[in-house]
């Protein structure tokens, strides 16, 4: 069972309290962008075996969206953080790097 701490409520919520929102930190390519960029934005998602950044919604709690950094292989959670950001905060990146010095970064 995946258990994430909601950064807004401060409670440990398990995945039945949450709703997954897919990959985090997507950059939107809208009208005026090239077809390739638009296709990538719409359809191409990462599917890593290892460190992954995801969006989650505390659906039966506060109803807010937040971000989580976790490992898809070990199910380890590195941390959760606010949705009001376009990139993972330093503390989360450092937590991942500490565990995986060879990790190549979130982009």
């Amino acid at each position, binding site marked *: 069972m995946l258990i994430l701490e909601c950064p*807004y*409520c*401060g*409670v*440990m*919520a*398990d995945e*039945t*309290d949450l709703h997954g929102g897919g990959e985090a930190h997507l950059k939107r390519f809208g009208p005026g962008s090239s077809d390739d960029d638009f296709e990538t934005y719409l359809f191409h998602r990462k599917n890593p075996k290892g460190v992954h950044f995801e969006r989650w919604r505390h659906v*039966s*709690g*506060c*109803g*807010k969206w937040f971000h989580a950094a976790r490992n898809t292989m070990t199910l380890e959670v590195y941390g959760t953080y606010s949705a009001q950001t376009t990139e993972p905060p330093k503390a989360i990146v450092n937590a991942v790097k500490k565990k995986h010095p060879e990790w190549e970064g979130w982009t």
Partner: protein
Amino acid sequence: MSNAVSALQGASFDGYCKVEEAGLTGMITLRGELASAGVAKAVKAVTGAAMPGQGQITEGAKGRAGWMSPDELLLIVDHADAPAVVQAASTSLAGEHALVVNVSDARAVFRVKGAACREVIAKLAPADTSVMQPGMLRRTRIAQIPAAFYLEDDETAVLVCFRSVAQYAFDLLKDAAKPGGEVFG
């Protein structure tokens, strides 16, 4: 206007905890910037309760104020007073970006009474009820429906859900409180 009736009109069940529908309860949703002094003042004025912190519910002379999310409060007052409370709070928050709505008739409230009230709720919700203390509020789900609960005292849990699923919630609680279903004996 027709007489107001609560969802299950006070239905109750005696199991190893007593489950009862709480009857008419005034409930008000207040959304806005919770850090603002205006909101705290309005909450204090209508319920007598202090501003609740994250995950808390506070009690005042005229009602309770529960923290529902970073921008939402639940005010619990007397059912008959609710329209006046909405009026008073709206007036006092006129200058702010805030919303006050009477949701009393959209909700159902249950009381679970007994030493094992935490256990009865723990059977249904993914929340850690053992850490719950009076003064804390948790929004979660019971079985398939959203619900929030808090403890009035160590042996009384209050559970709030939508009125449309009141019968479902009551059936769940009844089942969880059935004699012979004790987990920790």
